[in-house]
């Protein structure tokens, strides 16, 4: 069967979804992470437990939520708890396998900025802020990050560290007694980066089909390390694409309507 055409965003979402182990408990951010987590649940990882910070546990939305607390999330959940309980008993309690985050900016150690561009007190761009991310990044056993790759997003130095990745690398997380292992992969529209086992610096390990290592380098604001044996991400399967497109079509239909 000839390969179907697909977009870079679709490749990103599918590559991110593949990282989800079936049966894992996931603390899911809104947007790209939510799309990838639900795609995983609808394909190879049906027993995945999706948790949103709004308090919905084991939710199985038929369409992607636009907000972190859509009614769909509550109505399809195994349990709904108050937000203080969600952060205290469920996230801080250390029972989440995988945190799934987006980011506005990221650095070579997968630290995340979602707060400000420029000076905190006089920012050129005020971003939404932390939300649940600092503690998701700290407390989940592992973290996945997904965002589009370009030099505005992949920067040499963050203006503000909102959520800890590997800090300044090495064993910095352990020294600070952060409970979780931190980011294990960054999945973009161009490829996949994973932290070096020792230095924790992000290393390009896979490029998506048709993307060159050079293209990834050009889209990165620092000298990106390359894995000695750079892989090429498997292209989307027909099933992955059709499930994702169905999900997004259902979502678009559900979210349309008059103001």
């Amino acid at each position: 069967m000839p390969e179907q055409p697909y977009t870079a965003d679709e490749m990103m979402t599918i590559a991110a979804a593949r990282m989800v182990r079936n049966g894992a408990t996931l603390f899911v951010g809104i947007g790209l992470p939510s799309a990838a987590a639900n795609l995983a649940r609808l394909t190879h990882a049906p027993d995945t437990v999706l948790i949103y910070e709004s308090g919905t546990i084991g939710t199985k939305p038929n369409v992607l939520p636009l907000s972190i607390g859509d009614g769909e999330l509550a109505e399809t959940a195994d349990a709904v708890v108050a937000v203080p309980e969600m952060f205290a008993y469920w996230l801080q309690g250390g029972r989440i396998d995988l945190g799934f985050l987006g980011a506005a900016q990221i650095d070579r150690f997968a630290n995340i900025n979602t707060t400000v561009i420029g000076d905190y007190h006089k920012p050129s761009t005020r971003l939404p802020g932390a939300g649940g991310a600092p503690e998701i990044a700290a407390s989940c056993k592992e973290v996945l990050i997904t965002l589009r790759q370009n030099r505005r997003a992949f920067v040499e130095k963050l203006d503000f560290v909102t959520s800890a990745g590997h800090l300044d690398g090495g064993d910095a997380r352990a020294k600070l007694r952060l409970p979780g292992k931190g980011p294990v992969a960054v999945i973009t529209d161009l490829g996949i980066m994973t932290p070096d086992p020792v230095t924790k610096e992000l290393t390009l390990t896979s490029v998506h089909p048709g993307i060159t290592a050079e293209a990834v380098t050009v889209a990165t604001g620092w000298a990106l390390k390359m894995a000695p044996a750079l892989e090429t991400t498997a292209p989307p399967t027909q099933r992955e694409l059709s499930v994702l497109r169905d999900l997004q079509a259902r979502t678009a239909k559900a979210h349309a309507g008059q103001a």
Partner: protein
Amino acid sequence: MAVIVELKQAIREFVRDGDIVALEGFTHLIPFAAGHEIIRQGRRDLTLVRMTPDVIYDQLIGAGCARKLIFSWGGNPGIGSLHRLRDAVEKDWPAPLILDEHAHAGMATAYAAGASGLPFGLLRGYLGSDLPKYNANIKFIDCPFTGERLAALPAIRPDVGVIHAQKADRKGNVLLWGVTGVQKEVVLASKRAIVTVEEIVDTLEAPANVPNPVVLPHWVIGAVCQVKGGAFPSYALGYYARNNAFYKKWDGIARERETFTAWIDRHVRATKDFAEFRRSIESVGKEAPKHA
């Protein structure tokens, strides 16, 4: 002890200039009607508290009601920026806005501490984040048993807490369900609490198998006000869905100071209540059906 009154009266009697005011609702049951009434009555110098300042706080900030914001995530969910919040922070318009900025875990803990009558809340939080560098209200203490360093935040104790809920009975007992966020906490942490509800019923019974039913007894609430649809454009589970189209439309309205001001003047300041506001924005659709 709850009194059942008009929202106009509750805001007039409970909310004063300079108060610390928290309107909560975690994407669900956001008390938009109450926020509008605060704008209509022209309150000033408020310290606004809210985990997720969204469109309602964009409106309050743009309308000049706020001097300070205590928050942990300020965006238009699923859409992008809150342009009025950004304009206040980036360009001091209509006035400078002091930020007391947190992460969700911290805010939730600080609300729970407020509800618990404790002076501070405790969490494993902010580790490795720059937030504590910019917020003197985030301190760290050592566990007296293990020596572990944990974050400590002052309890949130608003002067006024405002939520929207599905139902109240005639005594003022309140029932809500679905995503309930920090709504119980804000009511219990506040000196005075206002609850707007979809309906007032004789007997407060939770429908079968609704997620997470929460009852707040009348004696922890100051005023209960019936405002049908009072969470629009957010949603009330079991009553109406989120109006996602309005959230998208807000991006255009709020982008420029002029369009924002014209909108807030026409639809909020010039209307007498939330029902008239709803008719007013619907009439725009009828005037210019092509742009609806």
